[in-house]
């Protein structure tokens, strides 16, 4: 069964005719060419494919586009605004929070949702918010550091 869908990704509306059983992950990567969203298990067990739906982190491997009509999807490609990187992206780059970089897009989006909800999180709140994103390279240390740094800078800017 194919379905005609409208999917709003990073503020752009896409008219799609796709099999209804294709997950959001597959549609983003294979139909929209947004390969910034990665995948590590496709079963909801690693968090790599995290994207935002209406600002909340969800697993794109377990989301169906047909269930997301009228909702706003944000991927890592949508974090930078008009060529200006998001403070989280700056901090991740500066502090070496991305080693292999494979978990990074999902990590950034989960962190972005946290900072929207909670601008000055404690280290434990960051741990809780990122507990659903596995990383095998960093020991999370620089990731936590980077989220703290971004939060600080964003706070200063507010």
């Amino acid at each position, binding site marked *: *069964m194919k*379905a005609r869908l409208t999917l709003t990704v990073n503020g752009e509306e896409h008219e799609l005719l796709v*099999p*209804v*059983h*294709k*997950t959001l*992950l*597959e549609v983003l990567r294979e139909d929209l060419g947004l390969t910034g969203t990665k*995948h590590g*298990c*496709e*079963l*909801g*067990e690693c*968090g790599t494919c*995290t994207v935002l*739906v209406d600002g*909340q*982190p*969800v*697993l794109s*491997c*377990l*989301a*169906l586009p*047909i*269930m997301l009509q009228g909702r706003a999807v944000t991927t890592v490609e949508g974090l930078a605004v008009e060529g200006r990187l998001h403070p989280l992206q700056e901090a991740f780059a500066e502090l070496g929070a991305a080693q292999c970089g494979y978990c990074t897009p999902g990590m950034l989006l*989960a962190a972005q949702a946290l900072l929207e909800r909670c601008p000055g999180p404690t280290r434990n709140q960051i741990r*809780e*918010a990122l*507990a*659903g*994103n596995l990383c095998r390279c960093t020991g999370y240390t620089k990731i936590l550091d980077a989220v703290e740094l971004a939060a600080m800078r964003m706070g200063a800017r507010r």
Partner: protein
Amino acid sequence: MMRLPPFTYLAPRTVDEAARLLAEHGSRAMPVAGGTDLFPNMKRRQFEPEVLVGLGGIRGLAGVGGRAGEGLRIGATTTLTEVAEHPEVARHYPALATAAGLVSTPQLRNAGTIGGNVCVDTRCNYYNQSWEWRQAIGFCMKKDGDICLVAPGSPRCWAVSSSDTAPVLWSLGAEVSLVGTSGGRTIPIAALYRDDGINYLARRPDEVLTEIRLPPADGWRSCYLKLRRRGAFDFPVLGVAVAVRLDGDTVREARIVLGAVASLPREATAAGQALVGQRLTPEVITRVADLAAGPARPLDNTDYAHFYRKRMTRVFVTRALHSIAAGRDGGGAGAEAAP
């Protein structure tokens, strides 16, 4: 990449329409809300429904209503995040907020629903595997085969009830509302479950779980402790839900319900009764914890050794009761409740 098998997706606007569609398509159809349990299982071909009936578009099925004084009503498609963060739930039914907040990961809780968690498929590490893996070991009776690999020779399936919220809801005396083509019914949540790894729900195929009803919180104290290896992702391999109604410091009513030790949440009835009329003294707690551990009969089909899960039942019940006695309701991971 693991992919879903093809299916037809139907999006009813009302509960009655959903029930009608489920009835119409019979065993070919399954309901789906968040999809966080169903989709991985479908990718592994544990379920191969030809029709999915999406509940997400039904108005009025999501949200928390009422007040703790009269009892809360939680719509089945309310996300686990919403349940965990709802102030009324957190204040008056803290064990439920804890349990919902301990399900898997933040991402999963943002999509997964309370109804889905109540109905979550029973699990077994011979069953939650890809089609190829199950083919290699020989299919089990829960899907595609006719034997039980955990207990060979057993006539039944021993897959494990793996819901965090179900034991808590049971301990709180919750009811669930189901609506089918022939009307609706509201039953104690205890009556929703059956002691069978395959047919673990008493939900009829055409029925939609619409609502969870919590009784008035008046005087009830609750705590949920979860055993798992990691603080995120992992299903419970033991859940201990304790709810106690106190009158001063004397227990008037009590229910202790164990999760993930059988194919359904298992109430330790004798242990609960032994609390009634007592104060939560260390001696009473020790005696009750011993009684509570009795009904826990885990098998070797989840993470952690089954003898360890059995042994932890006593420890967790003890800790949960001590927590309540000390005014520390809610719960968490077992270690967090260490004295």
